[in-house]
């Protein structure tokens, strides 16, 4: 492995560290934005970290008769997301693993965490766990095709589904970002990200109503350090998804070389972009209500239509 220099490894380490530190702040930021827009004070942005620290100091509990799935799911969730954070060109398109960071691989790694949580919820044997799992799987089954087709639309111009190549292509040809297929794919991406990260209008992360829950129902039985891992994993995944979104559609600022200055610029610009996106998502959440569960397929079908149109338009333009 002679190709590996100190710098790219440093980028990976820095990327993982910054994302893990930053993810809970992202959730806190979104909560604060919502509170302020609703005229409430709300907890400080660092509250999620405080909660995590509190949870990590608690005892572990496990439901009777649950198996290794229940214990493993939080670890799998965090681990798969961390692999994505390490692999994906989030701060720089020139990382150790950049050759291997295929967009399909990233999407399915993120999905692995969801699936393991759904299995763990079934494992608990409670009605809510089963209900949450079936709802999540129904949503994923509808959201994933839309996402895959949208990726196809992004991959078409550069003839590659490798994330660094797509990002580099956009950097070299800024006009690509304004093409119809990019805009349509952006719409599909946003809907899928909202659905998969359990945000409104698909799921309400702030609810206490067990019967309406999707993501929250999956983690009802978790407590203490396990819950901390699930919360960290979910917030990390949201951060990764928003970072991917900003890199795919507004890539400027990402480091193309491995100098210290460009790395700092990349960190600052990504933080700014993600914060802006998160603020927009949170502000949007204030305006909307949660969809009736049976309307969610219609929304996801809309995302699928957008991504199919994106592919069609890229074929027409090509």
């Amino acid at each position, binding site marked *: 492995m002679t190709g590996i220099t100190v710098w790219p490894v440093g980028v990976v380490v820095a990327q993982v560290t910054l994302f893990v530190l930053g993810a809970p702040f992202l959730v806190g930021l979104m909560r604060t934005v*919502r509170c302020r827009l609703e005229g409430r004070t709300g907890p400080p942005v660092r509250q999620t970290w405080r909660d995590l620290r509190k949870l990590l100091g608690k005892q572990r509990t496990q439901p009777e008769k649950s198996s290794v799935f229940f214990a493993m799911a939080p670890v799998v969730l965090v681990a798969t997301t961390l692999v994505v954070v390490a692999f994906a060109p989030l701060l720089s398109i020139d990382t150790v693993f950049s050759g291997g960071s295929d967009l399909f691989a990233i999407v399915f790694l993120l999905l692995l965490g969801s699936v393991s949580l759904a299995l763990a919820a079934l494992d608990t044997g409670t*009605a*809510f766990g089963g*209900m949450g799992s079936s709802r999540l799987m129904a949503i994923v089954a509808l959201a994933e095709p839309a996402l895959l087709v949208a990726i196809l639309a992004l991959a078409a111009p550069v003839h590659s589904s490798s994330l660094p190549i797509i990002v580099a292509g956009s950097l070299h040809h800024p006009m690509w970002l304004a093409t119809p297929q990019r805009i349509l794919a952006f719409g599909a991406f946003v809907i899928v990200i909202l659905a998969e990260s359990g945000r409104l209008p698909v799921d309400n992360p702030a609810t206490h109503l067990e*019967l*309406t829950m999707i993501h929250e129902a999956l983690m009802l039985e978790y407590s203490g350090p396990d819950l901390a891992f699930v919360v960290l994993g979910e917030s990390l995944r949201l951060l990764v998804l928003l970072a991917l979104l900003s890199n795919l559609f507004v890539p400027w600022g990402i480091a193309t070389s491995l100098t210290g200055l460009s790395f700092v610029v990349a960190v600052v610009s990504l933080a700014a972009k993600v914060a802006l996106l998160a603020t927009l998502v949170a502000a949007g959440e204030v305006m909307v209500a*949660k969809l*009736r569960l049976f*309307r969610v397929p219609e929304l996801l079908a809309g995302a699928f239509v957008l991504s199919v149109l994106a592919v069609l338009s890229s074929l027409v333009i090509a």
Partner: protein
Amino acid sequence: MTTPVARRGVVPNSIRVIATAVERIAIEAKELLDDGFRLALVAAHDDLEEIRVVYAFTKGPPDERVELVVRLDPERPSLPSLAAVSFTASRFEREMRDLFGVELVDHPQPRRLVLHQHWPQGWYPMRAGAGAAPPMVENAGSYPFIPVEGPGVYEIPVGPVHAGLIEPGHFRFFVVGETILRMKARLWFVHKGIERLMEGKSVDEGMRIAERISGDTAVGHGLAFMMAVEEALGVEVTSGDRRTRAALLEMERLYNHVADLGALCNDVAFSIAHAHAMTTRERLLRLNEEVTGHRLLRGGIVLGGTNVRRLPARAELDSVGREVADLVAMVRSNALVIDRFAGTAVLAHEDAVDMDTLGVVARASGRTIDARVAHPFTPMPEGFTVAAREDGDVLARFDVRVDEVGTSLDCLRAWIGAEPTADPREARYDDVTPVAGPVPTRRSGLGIVEAWRGALVHRVELDGDELLTRVKVVDPSFFNWPALPISLADTIIPDFPLANKSFNLSYAGNDL
């Protein structure tokens, strides 16, 4: 103190009492029900030498009240069930069976209602000399859930401990996919023995308990109790005080309805509307505190009068009206919210009538029943109308609450402008002159008010020393709870919290 004035357009309360034989009860009850009466209350009394059962029937307008009284052998109390003529009667009967040990002949559901299976057989807490609660047993009177079978049917048990800070109730859903086939609510987890607790208490002590039966209905329960006591003791209340009492009732309706409007939005995750509603509710609570000295309006009603510091000013009411109008406009302009509300958890008009529903729930299904019209204790302002909708869905219940906020504000505006109300004063027990004549050994009274959830009835009996011997409390939730499962036909599981919130029934008032 205002001087007594002649009653204006209000029919005086007068109860017609019909003593009847056990075998005649079904015939008498059917005659009254066919005559348009509704069964408002059934109360059993252990008089040692006999078990006396009182059925209170009410009708209005004009205000009419009839009490059927039957006497049973205390050794083997037994009654023919009225379930065939009145669904509500069947529930009162099950309550009576659990608490008094009255056996019911031909009851279609001879199962426990109030006491859970851990209470031993043969112990009836409301019987004289029942004593302290015996130790719990494993499974004395099991009442299993009726199973629903079929391919793909599964059960979801929810509660009695919930994720939010709400009252305890156990809901058992039988579901295919997401669609509810059947839902059974099991309540009475907060049975506190309130009726027993009030026995032997003075009127003042009883009032303190009545105001705390259901925290959000302090005026409703307090006023119904006090009106029943005043009827029993023959205490006159001036028209000014009666109007002030009606104003307190409307203020209670206001803050609860505003909170419900917000809570309905919160249940569809439209939290900005919830935040706005909570702001308005907080303003109303602070106003309440200035009016009675208590945020939940406790202490405003005393025997024979009222004890308020001031009434709300017109400007305060107008400002609340504007805030609610803004809130409603925001909700109605949001298509996602309306989509969630419309067509959800429909309670058909026939079901609302058959189940004897009351209050907002009844009126949203086109049943315009309102004790403010049927049993008025003060003249309602000109142009007062009972808010009603036909659709019976969550949206209809939302709209009825919106309209009632408007009518409550109109009532308050009319009443505060009418004439100077009673001076702040402390009505003392000895201020009041009971009617002349020999003091009877047992006096009873029936108080009916339209509390914010619906018609609320208290029936009290007092002895010669003016101590309470029996208080029977009927919260409108007792009538409305059975209607909730009916409305869930074709509703999906994730819409249940919204449906439940749109009914917003009391557990504390029901479980007593």
